[in-house]
């Protein structure tokens, strides 16, 4: 494993800076559709700066786990961000197993986030953690199957290899396996980023929350890290969806001109996906909590069909 330092630094900066912008873009687009003026797209940066400046209030019932959680969640999200090819291939970090390691990293982050929800012993945090675990138990297999479909098509579990193998095969977009896996992954994306119809990132109603309930007890610097990590995780999933299923326009190496072009393509793909997500949020109500597994079950079935059709229509 040889690490390209330029690529590493560049992608770290890209992940850190692009992720709040993506959150801001989604919030802003949503507001526009609802006839509201809405926040500026860079509002999340101001929020992060504000949180970093604020003091923290920590429950007297909290243990050391509570303090460890933001660091672990932030680190896993950033590492996941370094593994996904965004504007250029290969991605700077290529851990063993590729896709498997990515799913593992996300799961580790989620596990600690759930611990953070439980640790201070507040009722809302416990509810959030329990709901998150219920949902991820179904979302995770669907995500793995969808990624494996792409992995088999690309002949590797290394994410950069998959993307490189797919580049230039435009005809693949119409294959059933591709479409089905994309659909499954899109549903997983909605669940994992806490979007309507699974969760509502904009609500103030503690009783209905999932992700927000787990981080209710956090404030100040820790909250900033968790919010930032959530944005990075969102970028990871968006990037995964964008580049696994639309593998073109990525720069083959760190040449400035090619990277600039790659960034342009990345921006186009992210905006396209953001518009799709916003449209889903805009036109849907939240599902009853016990209906969410049905939706994710559908994602799982779609992913399974994708995998099967890969062999059937080969």
């Amino acid at each position, binding site marked *: 494993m040889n690490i390209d330092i330029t690529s590493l630094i560049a992608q770290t900066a890209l992940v850190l800076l692009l992720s709040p912008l993506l959150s801001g873009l989604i919030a802003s687009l949503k507001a526009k*559709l*609802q*006839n*509201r003026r809405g926040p500026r797209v860079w509002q999340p940066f101001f929020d992060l700066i504000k949180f970093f400046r604020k003091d923290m209030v920590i429950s007297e019932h909290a243990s050391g786990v509570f303090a460890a959680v933001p660091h672990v969640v932030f680190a896993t999200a950033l590492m996941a961000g370094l593994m996904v090819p965004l504007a250029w291939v290969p991605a700077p970090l290529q851990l063993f197993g590729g896709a498997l390691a990515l799913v593992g990293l996300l799961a580790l982050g989620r596990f600690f986030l759930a611990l953070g929800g439980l640790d201070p012993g507040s*009722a*809302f945090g*416990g*509810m959030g953690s*329990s709901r998150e675990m219920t949902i991820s138990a179904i979302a995770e297999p669907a995500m793995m199957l969808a990624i494996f479909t792409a992995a088999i098509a690309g002949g590797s579990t290394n994410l950069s290899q998959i993307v490189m193998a797919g580049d230039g095969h435009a005809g693949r977009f119409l294959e059933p396996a591709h479409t089905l896996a994309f659909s499954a992954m899109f549903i997983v994306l909605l669940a994992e980023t806490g979007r*309507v*119809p699974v969760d*509502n990132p*904009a*609500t*103030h*109603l*503690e*009783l*209905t929350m999932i992700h927000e309930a787990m981080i209710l007890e956090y404030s100040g610097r820790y909250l900033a890290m968790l919010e930032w990590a959530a944005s990075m995780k969102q970028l990871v999933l968006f990037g995964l969806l964008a580049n696994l299923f639309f593998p073109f326009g990525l720069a083959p190496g760190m040449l400035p001109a090619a990277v600039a072009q790659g960034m342009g393509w990345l921006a186009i793909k992210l905006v396209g996906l953001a518009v799709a997500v916003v449209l889903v949020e*805009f*036109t*849907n*109500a*939240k*599902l*009853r*909590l*016990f*209906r969410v597994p049905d939706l994710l079950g559908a994602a799982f079935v779609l992913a399974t069909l994708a995998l099967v059709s890969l062999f059937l229509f080969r």
Partner: protein
Amino acid sequence: MSSSGSKSFSAALKPGLRRAMEALAKQFRGRITRVDAPRPDEVYLDADPVMAGALCSTLYKKHGARLAGVFAEDARTSERAFLVYQIYALDAVGGFVVVRLALPPEDPALASLTSAVPAVNWQEREIQDWFGIRLLGHSNPRRCAMHDDWPPVHPMRKDFDLRATLPPFRGERHKFREVEGEGVFQVPVGPVHAGIIEPGHFLFSVAGEPVLYLQLRLFYVHKGTEKLFESLLIPHGVRLAESISGDSGFAHATAFCHAVERAAGVEIPARARALRTICLELERLYNHVADIGAICTDVAFVTANMHAMRLKERVLRTNEHLTGNRLLRGMACLGGVRFDFDAGRIGALSGLLDELGNEFNDLVEIIRSHSGTRDRLETTGVLSPKVARDLGIVGVAGRASGIDRDMRRDFPHDFYDEVQFTVPVFSEGDVQRRLAVRREEVYQAISIIRQTLNKLPDGPLRTEVREVPPDRVALGFVEGWRGEIFHWVHTAPGNRLARCKVKDPSLQNWPALSEAILGNIIPDFPVVNKSFNLSYSGTDR
């Protein structure tokens, strides 16, 4: 018009009410010591306190009455007794029977009616807390209107000074009932909430997500409003009544004015009655539209809410154009209304109605065609008609659970007997039906305002209400947007009040929430709560 015997009732008494009174007088010969009928639809009976239970059962079973309110008055100086009043509404005949029970000044006690009429549970406990009248046989006699950290005082007694300062909290805080079992957790919510709402504590006992039991605790913002009325001149009471519950300001003020006007025996000019009706319906409009949007927000269908907010804003701006205040504050006054609607204002109001009619249709269509929202609202938070009847649920929530009552139709006040409208009633009692009642009432409100504008009488804006004679009693009532609002007054010398009882529909409806949430999952609570949308301030007073 008082008659101490039981033979002759005033000929002015409504026929149905007179028949009921004659039957009662016959059955309780000798036990009803005095009958007083100050108005055709309002009769006072003085009865022996031991007969309260029997009277209640007869009124319920034979006369289709319901106990709409129970309250007390400290009359130790004038009558050497504590008085307990029980207001029975005879909806079918459009009249009220008020039973007055005199209790001894030392250690007053009365048999509780709660086990027979669960609807008065909180009201009886309120009497117990505020007056120190023991309610014997109450199934849950713990403190309600005054929290456990209050010292043992009874602030509604006359010898309690309004300006008294009490020692700080000592002793034990409230203990909630414990719910035990494997996997049962307590989820405390409040009293301070995340939204911009008032305080109330909800303690859920849950097994996983399903709710097993919900305990409510209110009265965090008790302001002593009823006591405050006793310190004010009657005309100033209108402004106080306006602020009892912010979203029902005009309805509360009007109910207070009704009570005082009835006590004074004043006739209200036709134009004032019409303008009051328009304002009551405007209040209903903006609240119903906002609630429909808010219900959609609580299932994360924000799109519908954004449209609803836009419509609500349009109504509020019209309110400001008409009365100078977005929430119709300052419009109500004794004897009529403060401001007239000139041709320009009437034009603006007609314009609003035309626009609203179309745009509200669009909003209804957006919600109706949205299967995700319907799935969330139907079968959620069911309040069965039986439970609703037992708890005496009123207003929107009652009509969604099969209780076909509306003061505007059953006890027509203001201009309501001169307009045509229907009262929507559903029997399913879920969130969807509470939304549907609001939806239909918006259409009805638009129609009522149109009809009133078409018939708008000319003439003076108000009758002057001079000093109200002392020692008169009167009940004022209004169908507010949330449900029936009662103000009962007892006048005192010097244009003041000896007692003003305020009953907001929220006080009656809060216990319904504990029943409607059973069998639902905890993330559905906010939308169930929103579908009732009860007032904290109106309850706590």
